[in-house]
């Protein structure tokens, strides 16, 4: 018994000291909510060094997770980085604050082609962080010829070796592209046709994945998979046989943009942070660390000068014209997507 109470006292003391350590909070803080592994981590420390503002940095996994966190009211962040269609949805639901661009002079460096896009037509709420393209990744050692079309994902010859997106928007976009429909269609029969195609594909699919695609493609577990082109370079480190194409149909190009939510407590610091992320140095370091395409002109020039530019991340204008940006779908269509997606997944 005595030993037990000694143990108890010891653990209590440890716990108390641990909680003391964890509860001391410095004065000025900016709360940042970003995707996991989507930054050169040293930049946060750099920002603190420059401004004295401590960065409280947390991460999330999906746009939907971000949305429900913001919606719930449990958290208050100063900077969030949703993707295009989620920016639009948040604007629509009045969840974002308009930015004061006099505090973000580096905004001038943003490529004009990345301004005024459909999700934020008047450039009021968002500053692009990175952008990218969805491509088709394949293992050249197990394919006879390099695929150039999304139809490879529906090809029986790869049965059991196909990976597919585990989220409705990206998965439906591929089916719609194969069928030749627009990625933002609100036509119910077109969407249902896409659903039928996905359902037909289901027996051929090895697994529905997001992040696990790295290890599965890197380890040679599967032959074809759709994913974000910027991530291809990480996979290639493990498996040099991998190749990537922008399929001949169409595909999605996306922008992840920095925004300030309504619940922000420190808007000035948030704008300082956004401006800092748009500096040439930060942008360059992020581009190297993350691998996604940069929206900053000066960073693009620097990458080009250093010969670190990956052509596939910056396709020519002709290809770019072919690609589509997701827009926020009307509520009925969102609901249809959700229902069909649940149905597709339930189908055991």
């Amino acid at each position, binding site marked *: 018994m005595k030993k037990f109470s000694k143990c108890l006292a010891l653990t209590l003391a440890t716990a108390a000291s641990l909680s003391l350590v964890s509860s001391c909070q410095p004065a000025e803080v900016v709360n940042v909510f970003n995707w996991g592994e989507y930054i050169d981590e040293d930049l946060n420390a750099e920002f603190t060094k420059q401004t004295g503002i401590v960065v409280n940095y947390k991460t999330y996994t999906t746009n*939907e997770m971000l949305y429900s966190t913001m919606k719930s009211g449990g958290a208050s962040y100063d900077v969030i980085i949703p993707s295009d269609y989620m920016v639009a949805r948040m604007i629509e639901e009045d969840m974002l604050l308009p930015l004061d661009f006099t505090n973000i002079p580096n905004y001038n460096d943003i490529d004009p082609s990345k301004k005024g896009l459909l999700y934020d037509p008047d450039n009021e709420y968002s500053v692009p962080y990175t952008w990218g393209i969805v491509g088709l990744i394949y293992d050249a050692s197990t394919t006879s010829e390099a695929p150039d079309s999304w139809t490879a994902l529906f090809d029986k010859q790869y049965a059991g070796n196909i990976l597919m997106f585990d989220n409705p928007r990206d998965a439906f976009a591929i089916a719609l592209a194969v069928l030749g429909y627009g990625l933002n269609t609100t036509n119910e029969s077109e969407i249902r046709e896409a659903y039928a195609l996905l359902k037909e594909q289901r027996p051929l699919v090895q697994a*529905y994945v997001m992040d696990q695609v790295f290890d599965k493609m890197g380890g040679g577990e599967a032959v074809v998979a759709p994913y974000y082109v910027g991530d291809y370079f990480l996979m290639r480190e493990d498996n040099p046989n991998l190749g990537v194409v922008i399929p001949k149909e169409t595909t999605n190009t996306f922008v992840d943009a920095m925004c300030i939510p309504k619940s922000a407590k420190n808007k000035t610091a948030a704008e300082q942070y956004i401006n800092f992320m748009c500096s040439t140095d930060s942008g360059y370091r992020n581009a190297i660390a993350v691998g996604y395409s940069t929206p900053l002109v000066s960073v693009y020039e620097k990458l080009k000068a250093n010969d670190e530019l990956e052509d596939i991340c910056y396709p020519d204008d002709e290809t770019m014209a072919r690609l589509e940006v997701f827009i926020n779908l009307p509520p009925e269509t969102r609901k249809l997507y959700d229902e069909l997606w649940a149905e597709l997944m339930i189908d055991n």
Partner: protein
Amino acid sequence: MFAASFRLAFYATAICLLISYPIAYVVSRETPQVQSVFMVLLMVPMWINFLLRTYAWMSILENNGLLNKLLVLLGIGKVSIINTEAAVALGMVYNYLPFMLLPILTVLQKLDRSLLEASSDLGANGVRTFLRVVFPLSLPGVLSGVTMVFVPSVSTFVISKLLGGGKTLLLGDLIEMQFLGNAYNPYIGSAVSIVMMLIVLVCMFVMNKFGDGGEETSMF
């Protein structure tokens, strides 16, 4: 969907019970030192984040994974487990086995040895003693183990995603999908949850009835 969840949870619980009971039984007859070492060794793996452990299982079970490499070395040939229901069940068993072992072991440890002696003195053989004395007395532990394994197995959501390749969707996944995931609709999510809770409550009610029998036996 409901069926798949309950089927897999049932398999996982049954397998856990089949593995746990013999082990708990032999361990309960070991010296106290061996027993305490056992209890601790059982819990330690769970202090490592379960996502990391499940990821490690992926590395082991994959088609080009460690298990298959070993089997090929031994000349047995490959098995394909990953992305099947078997893999999901294995993940459940792995994650929840301690919840079955601990309560059974706790009960067996407390078993009054003199009852066993009395039973054999009265002419019962080993099997009979086990069936008529040991097993009924250990029922409270078995029931608490069954509850503690079945319940999280039914409502788990990440395991099926990682080990089942997202193709074996379980109730937990459906709920997660509605609240946090790709088909945001908390109303359907809540409805599914309530239905599931009702079903689980019914299961618990049945177990309670059954468990009371066990309690009464232990009074004699």
